[in-house]
């Protein structure tokens, strides 16, 4: 019969299955009864006739199966039968099933959650078509180390014209601007982009158009703007008639005409942008012309088939040409090609990889646990298995049955795990200290589902194989004999002990990992940033200018007046202004020269971060004054020659000398810039990042003189700083209602953001380690209880022979302690090896840290308790009953 006909026949039989089964039963019953009747007729007794009929017929069940195979899909039928059987078996011991499913759900759910995060942060998950070819170009400078600086407009134009590896490029920058009008002026993030930006990202406007090439030219660009869907709905009631109308942006010289609305959900590369301007619209013509004015990145798309290294080589050649043509500005300058997904997620990936490893350890522990439980059960089921073997079930059939049972268990775990993972990723993304891009959403897609299925099936097979191997080792025939009941095979004890050792060692690795992460986060929190970040509220304001008569434009509120208003708020102890604040991301650097310094080159040309601050800035931040004084009120003027520097300036140019009165100037020593005299020296500050500034450049402070529209405000409070935010906002509004206030945050928030990734890793590591500890302890407890139960008779004999409770305790606890000790030793060795791999995630700790020792101590203590409980139970064994135990 052809395979096709056979399949058709079997399919056709599905509908008649029940009748076919009944007919077969009837047919065989008829045969047996006929044979019996004939036997009776030959003079056999009724019982003999029945036995004779059966003997002649053979194995009824087996033959029935053989016949039924004719109209069934045998493998499928068997699978369904095995599944039904597994469900029945699991249903009979709900306690075991709940514990096993819970353990597996934790393991599988954790793996699914972390995998879905990894999956969401891979290149293909970026919400742009063919995102694998999107790269960012960084203008780099080779100083003591390579530093990222960004591109200048002339450089960018040259890259674009000369590079052959790219389909297209777009300059990209972002900045906060004020949208004026309506009830309230609003600070919104604007992206300044070239014409090709939108096509590079593969997005088209929902309404109107994006920029034309002639709108992105350096000379006299037209004032046009593209809005996000969200801004259009919020500010303009989604009115399509806005196209062609103009909006006022502060502080642009003229109104901007709205030419397009982007589709909902598009927020640009910065993920928070609400408005797009032509790149050339905002910068002044002389900045656009300056080859040395670097500070933006370039988005580019590689040509199809061009590798990252080819593109890098292409740009390296261009950099060398530019270096020769413009040595003044392009000495030691290069371009770095960096994949977009690495830019967005690169910093997160080591943490995610570590967490993935950690959570897979949790799953391994869960599997070891459930395997142990299954082995215990399979011992109880030895007789059942032996009987089934005797009845003709083949070894393969039994194996299939056990693996099916494992898979059923794992599938139940996976279902619960998926629900757990969904809830966990949701909670994780909502509370994570790390801000994920908005397109990373909690969801279970096909990839994640397949991962979960694969993981759970692998678990199922492992879970099935453990008891199967164990059953194969123990001699089946022995299981049928009663005498074999009391003594468990040595090999099985060894397997189960080994599983305990594995569980303990994995748990040690996770606990040590969590311990080290906790220490790292503590170290980061305890880090001295050079100022006192506690009880500080920071915020920013954009202070509009007004032209008074023919004089220069003046701010609507002078800094000094603002300070007076803020100082009057109850709960404020100190307040200061600066054009930028520590960790607000607004710092900018300049080259400078010290009077009489030795000649310098591009690599060691002194560079310094410039901050304009009010005299109270240093005391408000509690920055230590190393020498001299802070500014006087008289020095608060744009032309004041007074400057305060951080101590590394003094260390470099005037070590061991009195720095007060020494002079520095912007640019080179021969430039026309005026000399400035040092009046004070303050400590170094982690002004730009924690735990360390990205470059070692020092800081200089100039008197704040109302020259900047953007003002950072730092308020030291005597009450919790966040609670003062409304009062501070109100005070600024009362000074002038047209001042938009934005980026309100406590300094603790800002430092927290800097260490977010460490805290993210720490929390998850802690959760995983807790799960591991719990599972390992349950595993130890289970195995020790089982061993005690197994040795009931032995313990009974010992007690009967005069052993006291102490002896029994020592016996049982000693047994467990050996396993735990072995596990801890292996775990410590593994931790030492693995900690090197995660050193990038750690801060100021090594695996030899006391935190690691503490973690091990916790595990050891809990594990010994888990041994002690069964041991204590063993001491209460009644010798008489124990000897009758069998």
């Amino acid at each position, binding site marked *: 019969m052809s395979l096709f006909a056979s399949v058709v026949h079997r399919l056709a039989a599905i509908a008649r299955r029940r009748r076919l089964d009944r007919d077969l039963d009837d047919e065989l019953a*008829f045969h047996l009864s006929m044979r019996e009747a004939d036997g009776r007729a030959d003079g056999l007794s009724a019982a003999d006739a029945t036995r004779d009929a059966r003997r002649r017929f053979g194995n009824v069940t087996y033959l029935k199966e053989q*016949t039924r195979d004719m109209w069934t899909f045998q493998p499928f039928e068997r699978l369904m039968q095995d599944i039904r059987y597994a469900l029945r078996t699991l249903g009979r011991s709900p306690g075991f099933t709940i514990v096993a499913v819970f353990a597996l759900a934790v393991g599988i759910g954790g793996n699914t959650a972390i995998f879905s995060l990894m999956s969401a942060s891979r290149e293909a998950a970026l919400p742009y078509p063919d995102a694998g070819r999107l790269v960012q170009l960084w203008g780099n400078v080779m100083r003591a180390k390579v530093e990222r600086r960004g591109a200048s407009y002339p450089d960018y134009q040259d890259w674009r014209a000369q590079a052959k590896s790219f389909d297209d490029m777009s300059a990209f920058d972002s900045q906060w601007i004020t949208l004026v009008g309506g009830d309230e002026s609003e600070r919104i993030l604007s992206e300044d982009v070239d014409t090709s930006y939108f096509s590079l990202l593969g997005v088209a406007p929902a309404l109107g158009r994006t920029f034309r090439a002639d709108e992105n030219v350096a000379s006299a660009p037209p004032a046009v703007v593209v809005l996000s869907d969200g801004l259009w709905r919020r500010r303009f009631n989604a009115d399509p008639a806005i196209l062609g109308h103009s909006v006022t942006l502060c502080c642009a010289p003229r109104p901007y005409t709205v030419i397009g609305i982007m589709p909902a959900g598009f927020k640009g590369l910065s993920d928070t942008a609400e408005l797009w301007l032509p790149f050339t619209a905002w910068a002044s013509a002389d900045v656009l012309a300056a080859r040395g004015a670097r500070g933006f990145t370039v988005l580019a798309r590689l040509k199809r088939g061009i590798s990252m290294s080819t593109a890098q080589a292409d740009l390296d050649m261009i950099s060398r040409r530019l270096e020769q043509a413009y040595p003044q500005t392009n000495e030691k300058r290069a371009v770095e090609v960096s994949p977009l997904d690495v830019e967005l997620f690169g910093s997160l990936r080591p943490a995610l990889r570590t967490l993935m490893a950690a959570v897979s350890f949790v799953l391994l522990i869960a599997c070891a646990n459930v395997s142990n439980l299954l082995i215990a059960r399979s011992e109880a089921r030895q007789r059942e298995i032996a009987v089934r073997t005797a009845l003709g079930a083949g070894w393969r059939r039994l194996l299939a049955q056990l693996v099916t049972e494992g898979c059923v268990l794992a599938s139940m775990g996976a279902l619960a795990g998926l629900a757990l993972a969904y809830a966990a990723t949701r909670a994780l993304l909502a509370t994570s200290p790390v801000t994920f891009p908005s397109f990373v959403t909690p969801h279970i897609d096909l990839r994640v589902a397949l991962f979960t299925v694969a993981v759970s099936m692998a678990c199922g097979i492992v879970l099935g194989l453990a008891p199967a191997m164990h059953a194969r080792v123990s001699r089946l025939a022995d299981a049928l004999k009663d005498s074999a009941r009391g003594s468990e095979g040595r090999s099985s004890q060894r397997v189960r002990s080994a599983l305990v050792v594995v569980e303990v060692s994995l748990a040690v690795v996770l606990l040590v990992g969590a311990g080290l992460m906790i220490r790292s986060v503590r170290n980061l929190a305890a880090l001295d940033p050079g100022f006192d970040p506690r009880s500080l509220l920071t915020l920013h304001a954009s202070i509009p200018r007004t032209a008074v008569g023919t004089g220069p434009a003046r701010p609507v509120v002078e800094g000094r007046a603002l300070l007076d208003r803020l100082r009057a708020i109850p709960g404020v102890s100190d307040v200061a202004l600066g054009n930028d604040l520590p960790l607000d991301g607004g710092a900018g650097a300049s080259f400078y020269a010290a009077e009489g310094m030795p000649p310098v080159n591009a690599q060691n040309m002194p560079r310094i971060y410039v901050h304009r601050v009010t005299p109270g800035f240093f005391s408000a931040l509690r920055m230590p004054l190393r020498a001299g004084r802070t500014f006087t009120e008289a020095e608060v003027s744009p032309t004041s020659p007074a400057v305060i520097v951080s101590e590394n300036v003094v260390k470099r140019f005037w070590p061991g000398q009195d720095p007060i009165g020494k002079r520095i100037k912007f640019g080179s020593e021969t430039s026309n810039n005026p000399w400035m005299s040092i009046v004070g020296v303050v400590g170094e500050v982690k002004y730009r990042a924690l735990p360390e500034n990205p470059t070692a450049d020092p800081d200089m402070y100039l008197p704040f003189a109302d020259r900047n529209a953007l003002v950072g405000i730092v308020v030291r409070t005597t009450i919790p700083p966040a609670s003062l935010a409304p009062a501070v906002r109100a005070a600024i509004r009362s000074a002038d209602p047209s001042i938009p206030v934005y980026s309100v945050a406590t300094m603790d928030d800002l430092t927290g953001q800097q260490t977010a990734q460490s805290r993210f890793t720490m929390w998850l590591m802690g959760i995983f380690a807790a799960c591991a500890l719990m599972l390992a302890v349950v595993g130890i407890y289970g195995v020790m209880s089982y061993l005690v139960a197994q040795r009931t008779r032995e313990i009974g004999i010992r007690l009967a022979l005069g052993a006291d409770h102490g002896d029994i305790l020592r016996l049982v606890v000693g047994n467990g302690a050996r396993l735990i000790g072995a596990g801890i030793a292996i775990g410590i060795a593994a931790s030492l090896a693995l900690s090197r791999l995660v050193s990038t995630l750690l801060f100021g700790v090594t695996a030899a840290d006391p935190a690691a020792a503490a973690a091990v101590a916790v595990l050891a203590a809990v594990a010994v308790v888990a041994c002690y409980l069964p041991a204590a139970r063993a001491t209460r064994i009644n010798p008489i009953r124990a000897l009758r135990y069998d």
Partner: protein
Amino acid sequence: MGDFLPGTLDMLILKTLSRGPLHGYAIVQFIHDASRDVLAVEEGALYPALHRLEVRGLLRSRWAASDNNRRAKFYALTASGRRALSQESDYWRRVSAAVTRVMQTA
């Protein structure tokens, strides 16, 4: 009846049924008697063979009353069953004659 040469049981069933429809027990009895008790091993092995032949279209079955008036499943040859029987018999004659010759001469 399971230890025959492969395919032999099928042929015996077809031959037995060439005399008219029978139920399984009667087929067993016939083979048993006709072979003078030589071919009498596991009776149950008949049923997988019967069902297989039916699926292949060599037999058809129906439920009817037996001699002692009980409901029994009767098998009968189909046209292709007859064709298969004649092919099998020819083959068997040739092979058994050949085997006999070998056994006599060697």
